[in-house]
C-alpha cells in the first residue's frame, strides 16, 4: 500500500511502486481526465501538478510521488480558493476562447498553463512557447495562445 494525496484526498493505493502515476490515476483511482498519449514524456497529455509543478505523469513512478500533493484536471478548480462549482480561470478562458477540438490533449494543456500562470502571471510569448511542449494534433495552438493572452491581459 502506498499513500497518495490526490486533489486533497488521501488514497491508500495497492499498486506496484513502479507503476506510473498516470496509470494509477486512471486505473486505480478512476480519474480518467488525465490522458495517455505517448508514455515517454513527449506529448504532455498526461500533465498533472505535483507539488504545484506541471509534471508528466506517464513518466513518474508511483514510488516517487508518495509524499507529494498531486492535482489533476478533476481537482484543478478546487485546488484554488474558488467557490465550489466554479471553474478555474484557465478552464473558463478555454470555454470563452472555444479552444478544444477533439479535446483529448486539453486536460494536459490546461494543467500546463495553470502551473505556468501560477508562477508567472504575465509570461512573454517566448516564455509561453517554451513552457508549452504539449502536442495537439487538432492544431489548437493559435487558440491556446489567445486564451492565455486573455488571462495575461487580465492579470
Amino acid at each position, binding site marked *: 500500500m502506498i499513500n497518495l494525496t490526490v486533489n486533497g484526498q488521501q488514497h491508500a493505493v495497492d499498486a*506496484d511502486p513502479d*507503476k*506510473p502515476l498516470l*496509470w494509477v490515476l*486512471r*486505473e*486505480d483511482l*478512476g*480519474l*480518467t*481526465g*488525465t*490522458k*495517455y*498519449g*505517448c*508514455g*515517454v514524456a*513527449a*506529448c504532455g*497529455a498526461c500533465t498533472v501538478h505535483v507539488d504545484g509543478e506541471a509534471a508528466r505523469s506517464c513518466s513518474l513512478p508511483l514510488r516517487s510521488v508518495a509524499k507529494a500533493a498531486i492535482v*489533476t*484536471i*478533476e481537482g484543478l*478548480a478546487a485546488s484554488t480558493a474558488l467557490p465550489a462549482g466554479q*471553474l478555474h480561470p484557465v*478552464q473558463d478562458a*478555454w*470555454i470563452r476562447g*472555444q*479552444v*478544444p*477540438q*477533439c*479535446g*483529448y*490533449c*486539453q*486536460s494536459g494543456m*490546461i494543467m500546463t498553463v495553470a502551473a505556468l500562470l501560477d508562477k508567472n502571471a504575465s509570461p512573454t*510569448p517566448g516564455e*509561453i*512557447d*517554451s513552457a*508549452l*511542449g*504539449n*502536442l*495537439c*494534433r*487538432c*492544431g*489548437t*495552438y*493559435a*487558440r*491556446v*495562445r489567445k486564451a492565455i493572452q486573455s488571462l495575461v491581459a487580465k492579470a
Partner: protein
Amino acid sequence: MKRRTFLLGTAAVAGGLALGYRVWSAGFDAQAAALAGTGTGAGALLAGWVKIGADDVVTVYVPHADMGQGTHTALAMMLADELDADWARVRTERAPADKAFANRFLAQGWVLQGWQLPSFLTSTVGAGFAEAARFINLQITGGSTAVRFTGQGLRVVGAAARSMLAEAAARRWQVDAKTLSVASSVVSHPPSGRSARFGELAADAATLTAPSDPQLKARRDHKLIGRSLPRLDVPAKVTGEMQYGIDLSLPDMLHAAVRSAPVHGGKLVAIDVAPALKFDGVERVVKLESSVAVVAKSFWQARRALDALHPVFDDGGNGGASTRTHFDQQARMLADGKASSVHRSGDAEAMLKAAPADRIVEATYRVPFLHHAAMEPINATAQFKKGELIVWAGEQDALGSKAALAASLGLAADKVTLHALPIGGAFGRRIAQTSQHLALVAEIAKVVSPRPVKMIWTREEDFAQGAYRPAVSTYIRAALGADGRPTAWSQVYVDLAGPGRREGYQIPYDIPAQSLNVVAGKTHVRTGTWRSVAHSQHAFYTECFMDELAAAAGRDPFEYRRDLLPTGSRLRKVLELAAEKAEWAKPLAPGAARGLALVESFGTIVAHVIEASLGADGSPQVHRVTAAVDCGDVCHPDNATAQVEGAIIMGLSAAIGEQITIEQGEVVQKNFPDYPLLTFANAPPRIDVHFLASDGPWGGLGEPGLPPVAPALANAMFAISGKRQRILPLTAAA
C-alpha cells in the same frame, strides 16, 4: 439551392411527436424509436433525428462521430433554426450504430446531387452505388460531409416538425395555422393571446402526417445558422469529464496489450509465453494469427508483461522492402508509361512533341507515408457473450465498422452491437476499411469470454500498425506558349489505393490540352485515408508545378494563376481575396517571401498565402498564414475558422517534418520523438481565415484547409531561395 423533395415519416413514442426522414422500410421507424426512446424519459422521437420531450427538451440525433469538428453543435443549430426551438433546450446525442439511424442525408448528397464519391467509401458500398437502398449502411464521418449533406437534411426535418407543431396548435385552438407564430419553442396565436410550449404540443403533433415539402427559411431569417454559439461539447472537454473510448470502464473488465507483426502481413511464428505469466495481474497470453496479446487486470500490468516477451513474426515475404525500394519501383512505373487515362482534353502529347525544348517544363514530385497520430491512441473494448459481440469504440463510421466486424467474425449482423464513443481525433484513421483493431479486440474477447476486455495500443503499436497516407509520386510535363501560358499538361501519377473512384487530380486552370494518367502501385504497407485523402498529394503536385510554370514564364505566381481562371469564378475570387488579405504585393523583410496555393476539395475552395523565411538549418519558419475560403454558406463561423486553423497546423506539421519510412519491411518511427509534430514553438504566430460568402452549395470544412498548405509553403521557400523543393517533407532535403 436546388429544390428537393424529402420524404418524412413519423413515429410516436410514449405520447409525443416523432419525425424524421422517411426510412426505407417501415420496420426501421419502430426500431429507431425503440433505440432512442429510452433516452430522456417520456419523450417523442422524431424518426431517429429529433425527439421533443414533454419537458420541451429537443434532442437531435447526430449520425456523425464527435472527433473534434464541432459538427454536433452545427447540425443541431441547423435543425433548431428551422424548428424555431429555444437553443437553451437543445441537446445532441450520437445516433446509435443501427440501421435505423443510417445516414440517409449522406446518401442523398452523393446520389442525387452527383457528388463525387470519396475513394475511401467505394469498398463500403460496393459497385452498385447508384442504388439508393444500399445507403442504409452509411453512418460515416468523413469526406467533410456533415454540414453539407446531413445538415441540409436536418434543416428539412426541423422545418417539418415546426409545421406539425403549429398544425397541432391550430387544431387545438380551431384557428388557421397561418395566423400562428413560432419562436423559442413556443407556438402562439397573437390575436387571442394563446400560446403553448412545444412539449405540450408534441403528442398531438405526432398524430399528424408530416408535410411532404416543408418550407425552409430564407437566409435572412436564420436566427441560429450563421452565429458562433458556444459549442455544446466544449465544457466537458475542459473539465476532464469527456469520456473517450480509452476511458471506458465496465464491471469485471480485463485489459489487453498487444503486439502485431511489425511487417504488415506477417504472421506470428513462435513465442515463449512463460515470461509474461510471471508478472502480477496477468491472466493469460493470447496467441493470434498475426498478433500476441497479454490480458491482465490492468493495462499497465498487461503492457509490462508484453514487454518481457519476444514474439517471432515472419515478414510475409516483405522483409526486403524499404522506402528506397518503394520509390525506386514507382520511378520505374512512371518511366515506362503504362498508365491509364483519368482525364483527357485536346492532344497534350502531340503538343508537347511539337513544342521547342526551351518551352517545356518537367518535374517529378513525391510525398511520404504519413501517420494520423491522433492524440488518443487506437483502443477498443469488446465482450463476447452467448454468441453475441458487443463493442465499444470510437469509430468514424460506426455502421460500416460494425458490418465489417460481423463479416470478419462470421457473425450475423444482429449479433453485433457497436457503441460509438467520442474520439480523441481520428482524421480518417478510424473508418471501416482500416478497423482491423476491432477484429483484434473481438478475437481477444472470444478467448476471455464472457468478460469484457479493453485493448489499448501503446503509442509505439499505434505507429507500427497505422494505415498511412500513401507514399506516392508523379511525373508532369507542360508546354508554354509564346505568351507564357501553358498550352499542354501531361501527367502520370502513382495511386496506391487500387481500383475505385479517384479524386484530387483535376487541374482548375484553363489549360487547353490535358492528359492525366494513373498507374496503380503496390505496397505491403497498410494505407488508408488521411485528412483530405488524395487531395493531400495532388494539391502539392499541381500547385507546385503551377508555380514552376509561372517561374518559367517569368510571371508573378498570383497573376499567372489568376489569368488562367475565368473572371468572376468562385476560384478566382478566392484567389484574389487571399492575395488581397495577405498583402501579396507588399514587400517583405529580406530573407522572407510569400507562396500561395489554390485548391478545391469536398465542395470548398481554399487559397492560402504563406509568409515564411528559412532558419539557419534551411528549415522553413512560417510567420503568417492567410486563408481565403468559399464553402458556400457558413453555419458556425467560429467553428469553421477553428477547422481551417486546425487543418493549417496539421498541413504545416506534415509539410515541414512528418514522414513514415520503411526499413526491412517495418515502420521505422516508433513514437513522437522520431515523428516530429508541429509544436507551439513552430506554430505560426499569425493565422487569418477569411470566408467569402457565396451562394455556392455548402461545402465541407474539416478537410479543405489542408491541401493548399504544403504547396503554398514549398512555393514560399522557392521564392526565398530560388531552390525548388519537390519532395515532402520539406526538411528532408534541407
